[in-house]
């Protein structure tokens, strides 16, 4: 293999600098000056990084391949890849054709910058592999004709950048903008600022800093009198049941099948249990392998979809199961850590949301009339909203989402209080009505799925750590983490409330 001498390497490097400074950097200046497309603050940093890589190339032209130059260009290359990831992440997941400013050759500038920094790293590696191990010569030396062209072009293009930077970002302390205005030579159109960019607290993950809730240990104030709604009527617990069938782990969700009378229970150990109508016998059980394929966080909800069993994790990942006497245990081995052999996994995937994005859920309901699955978000310090999301059973994609509003019969206890203070840990849909039990303030919320209004709310004193809600006839069964079940009359299914109200 013919290795590069230092002189040959300098010539190659000079051309690399010429291409780098002429095409992406010079092209960006043209875009700005001719077409008026000004860079944002992040684009400026990406462009500056490419300029600095070219400048390091000029250092090598002048002084030879000193280790600190090579180290610096590798640092700039890796920093540039990070910048491109961070910047592009704002836009990569948007819908088709959407981005920030115009694309060039089908790719937006922030993505181009990432590709160029990646190529720089590859080019450095290739040049180092091909560089002949001559005795190093680090003194200043003549740059040659191509080298002079590289330096001259560099000064011209960077000079043009300097002019563009002055017009679009201003002198210090002004800095680039998130939403830059187009280039203009008219000073009255110049926008110089820095306040917008320094606003906000420093954070590693920003709005993605969302603590994962533990369905078995939701830390809340359970007193209904302290809740955000005033004068709630009380729903008395009419009796108590208990799951006596052995469950592995703590109960985190419960559903009832009106067709067979059976129950579906899920636990924090990824156990899925089909129980008889007396809650005393396990008819079928599987222990999901939560590490297979998609990431299942703790199971938090369950629902019967006819003969399909649906279980939901707190991160809105779901698993659909079906009873199958002919299930092949060897084929299901990938899905289940343990199984009694009578269950097949149909699908494992995730619900995608819009309003409920970046929020966890602790409940799953099934609206038979609409054939939709329903989740309700729980608030976090970053996102204090209650969002009801509905997913079509056919394709399991989002059908609609809404933040429930208060009906005329429901009043907030204070002007600053909202439904987002409730932590819904169990939900069930009956006759186009969503019943949701909140561990916070031990409250049952009743929401009309057509009007999207909370039409009623009830205090349910005496429930402890509710984790699920099931409907059976005219009753609602509030499942608790300890396996006990508080039975209350279902509002709307007959006389339900006592004379007592909870006042603040």
């Amino acid at each position, binding site marked *: 293999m013919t290795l590069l001498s230092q002189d040959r390497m300098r010539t190659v490097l000079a051309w690399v600098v010429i291409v780098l400074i002429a095409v992406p950097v010079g092209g960006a200046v043209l875009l700005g000056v001719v077409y008026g497309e000004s860079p944002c603050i*992040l684009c*400026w940093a990406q462009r500056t990084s490419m300029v*600095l890589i070219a400048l390091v190339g000029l250092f090598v032209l002048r002084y030879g391949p000193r280790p*600190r130059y090579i180290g610096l260009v590798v640092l700039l290359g890796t920093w540039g890849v990070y910048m491109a990831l961070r910047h592009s992440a704002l836009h990569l997941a948007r819908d088709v054709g959407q981005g920030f400013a115009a694309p060039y050759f089908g790719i937006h500038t922030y993505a181009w910058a990432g590709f160029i920094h990646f190529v720089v790293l590859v080019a450095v590696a290739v040049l180092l592999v091909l560089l002949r191990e001559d005795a190093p010569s680090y003194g*200043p030396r003549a740059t040659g004709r191509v080298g002079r062209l590289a330096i001259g072009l560099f000064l011209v293009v960077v000079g043009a950048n*300097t002019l563009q930077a002055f017009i679009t970002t201003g002198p210090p*302390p002004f800095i680039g903008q998130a939403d830059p205005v187009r280039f203009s030579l008219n000073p009255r159109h110049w926008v110089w600022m820095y306040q917008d960019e320094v606003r906000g*607290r420093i954070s590693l993950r920003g*709005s*993605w800093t969302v603590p994962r809730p533990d369905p078995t240990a939701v830390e809340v104030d359970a007193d209904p009198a302290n809740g955000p709604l005033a004068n709630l009527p009380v729903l008395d617990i009419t009796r108590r049941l208990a799951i006596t069938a052995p469950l592995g782990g703590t109960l985190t969700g419960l559903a009832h099948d009106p067709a067979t009378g059976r129950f579906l229970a899920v636990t924090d150990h990824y156990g899925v249990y089909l129980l008889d109508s007396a809650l005393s016998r396990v008819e079928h059980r599987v222990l999901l392998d939560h590490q297979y394929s998609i990431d299942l966080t703790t199971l938090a909800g369950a629902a019967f979809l006819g003969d399909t069993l649906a279980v939901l994790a707190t991160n809105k990942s779901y698993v659909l199961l079906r009873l199958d006497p002919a299930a092949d245990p060897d084929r299901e081995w990938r899905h289940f850590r343990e199984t009694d052999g009578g269950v097949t996994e149909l699908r494992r995937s995730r619900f995608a949301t819009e309003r409920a994005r970046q929020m966890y859920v602790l409940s799953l309901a099934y609206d038979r009339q609409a054939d939709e699955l329903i989740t309700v978000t729980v608030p976090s310090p970053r996102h204090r909203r209650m969002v009801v999301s509905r997913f079509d059973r056919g394709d399991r994609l989002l059908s609609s989402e809404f933040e429930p509003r208060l009906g005329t019969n429901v009043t907030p206890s204070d002007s600053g209080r909202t439904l987002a203070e409730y932590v819904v840990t169990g939900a069930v849909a009956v006759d186009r009505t969503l019943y949701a039990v909140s561990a916070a303030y031990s409250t049952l919320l009743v929401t009309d799925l057509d009007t999207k209004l909370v039409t009623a709310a009830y205090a349910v004193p005496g429930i402890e750590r509710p984790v699920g809600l099931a409907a059976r006839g005219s009753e609602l069964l509030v499942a608790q983490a300890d396996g006990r079940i508080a039975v209350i009359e279902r509002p709307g299914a007959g006389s339900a409330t006592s004379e007592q109200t909870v006042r603040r």
Partner: protein
Amino acid sequence: MEFLNFLIILVAAWLLWRRPDKERLAFGLLIVSCIIMAVLFLIGTHTSLVPGLNL
């Protein structure tokens, strides 16, 4: 600040071209420019330093 940074880069390049004996000064300006560039990017992303995606 971007304007100031490009001025620094221009000075460093001019030193390379016209005053190659000032390598230490030119390299020092290069490092200062790298730091300003990085700080400006971090100012623009300080509310979420890592990409806003699932990690």
